[in-house]
């Protein structure tokens, strides 16, 4: 049974059709890479999954529960959306760390705010806070930043900031972790450290959707690859199929252009 089913998603911005007929599913522990040129709708798709955009049509199903149905406004209520979006985590292209908080606090903040609502919070306040701190420290050590806990975002490199952002997203234990071009804002020499962290997550069977321009990385890490162009899924398959033996002309053109660079 798939952990995520996306059914027939459509999205328009005014007259511009950004997504059309998008359907795919994702198994637990699987990594999907979404590739395609700029403007192909990849990012909008991720934003739809994370409720940052509202699809005009279609359904999103997580663990057999319909968490979004464009035809059913009761799935779109603000309060419920806030809980349902926690099925997903999102790592942004521009990191979007909170500048006024330390690395550690960036990771703990959302956990602390959510813990406030736990029924046992008042009695176990101390213990819960210790738990949260420990979890954040463990995650930051997992991404190799144990020595930067008390630094502020502007004091560390872009690659380090992105690794903090990954730890921050992992802290809420999302079912599906989404990456929106996680290395596009980084200098080439910094992309490696971020890709390494994502690769380790894949080895731990984290369920992930990765929008990326790093073709070699996608080929290595992804279990399946989706190629998008002009708002539709043009081709999908294993990395061997899509990269090694693309069936569609548009995929071939795209990959040729990439290989020339």
């Amino acid at each position, binding site marked *: 049974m798939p952990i995520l089913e996306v059914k027939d998603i459509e999205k328009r911005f005014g007259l511009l059709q950004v997504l059309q007929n998008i359907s795919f599913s994702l198994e637990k522990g699987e990594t999907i890479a979404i590739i395609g040129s700029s403007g192909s709708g990849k990012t909008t798709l991720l934003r739809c999954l994370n409720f940052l955009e509202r699809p005009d049509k279609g359904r999103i199903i997580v663990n057999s529960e319909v968490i979004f149905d464009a035809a059913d406004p009761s799935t779109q209520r603000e309060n419920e959306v806030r809980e349902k979006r926690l099925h997903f985590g999102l790592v942004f292209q521009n990191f979007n760390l909170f500048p006024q908080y330390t690395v550690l606090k960036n990771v703990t903040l959302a956990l602390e*705010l959510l813990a406030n609502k736990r029924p046992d919070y008042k009695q176990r306040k101390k213990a819960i806070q210790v738990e949260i701190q420990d979890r954040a420290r463990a995650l930051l050590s997992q991404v190799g930043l144990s020595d930067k806990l008390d630094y502020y975002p502007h004091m560390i490199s872009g690659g380090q900031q992105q690794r903090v952002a990954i730890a921050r997203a992992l802290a809420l234990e999302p079912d599906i972790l989404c990456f929106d071009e996680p290395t596009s804002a980084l200098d080439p020499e910094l992309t490696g450290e971020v890709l390494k962290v994502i690769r380790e997550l894949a080895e731990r069977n984290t369920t992930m959707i990765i929008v990326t321009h790093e073709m070699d990385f996608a080929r290595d890490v992804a279990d399946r690859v989706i190629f998008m162009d002009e708002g539709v899924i043009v081709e999908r398959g294993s990395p061997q199929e899509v990269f090694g033996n693309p069936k569609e002309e548009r995929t071939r053109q795209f990959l040729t252009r990439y290989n020339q660079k």
Partner: protein
Amino acid sequence: MNDVSVIISRLTESFLLNCRLFALTLAFSLPLGLVIAFGSMSRFQPIRWLVRTFVWVIRGTPLMLQLIIIYYGPGLLSMAFSWPSGISGRFVAATVAFIINYACYFSEIFRGGIESIPQGQYEAGQVLGMTKMQIFFRIILLQVIKRIIPPVGNEVITLVKDTALARIISNKEIIMMAGEYTNKGLIWPLFATGIYFLVFVGVLTLLLGWVEKKLGYFRV
């Protein structure tokens, strides 16, 4: 009567009115300005339109005129409402006029500050399951404050000196007090008032610099 120490103590006493007006205006116009800022950014068009028109009127007319209208208006229009008679009525009316006027100026500074925060900060909060209130108060507000300290500082310093306008509805603030001596041919008290303002603004400038330094630990 014209003893230097007596004059100075009377000047100081009247400067306390300037100080009270300053403190009350600041305490109320800052939060009110935030409310007005939200109004001027409202997604509901009639509210946005109403609030922006109000801000236009208040910023577009002299504070001196607003003081006169607020103080004398209710009586002249024979409204049911009237200010308490005497000194307290004049002071309350002046305070209300100042609060409304400064709230409008602050609201535009706040709006600019809030709109300058990148959308990504809101989105990062959203995907982490935060409420709108949490996003605003835990993530956005401090970044806005850091960005708007210099323009707010400008307004605050202007406010110190604007308090002298309260005399137009007979609040005996420091320049009005000094004027009484000028009428008697004694000019130095008027010059002395400048020192009061200079010192006050000097202290404020140091304070603003301190706040700016305090918020220097992060970058936006």
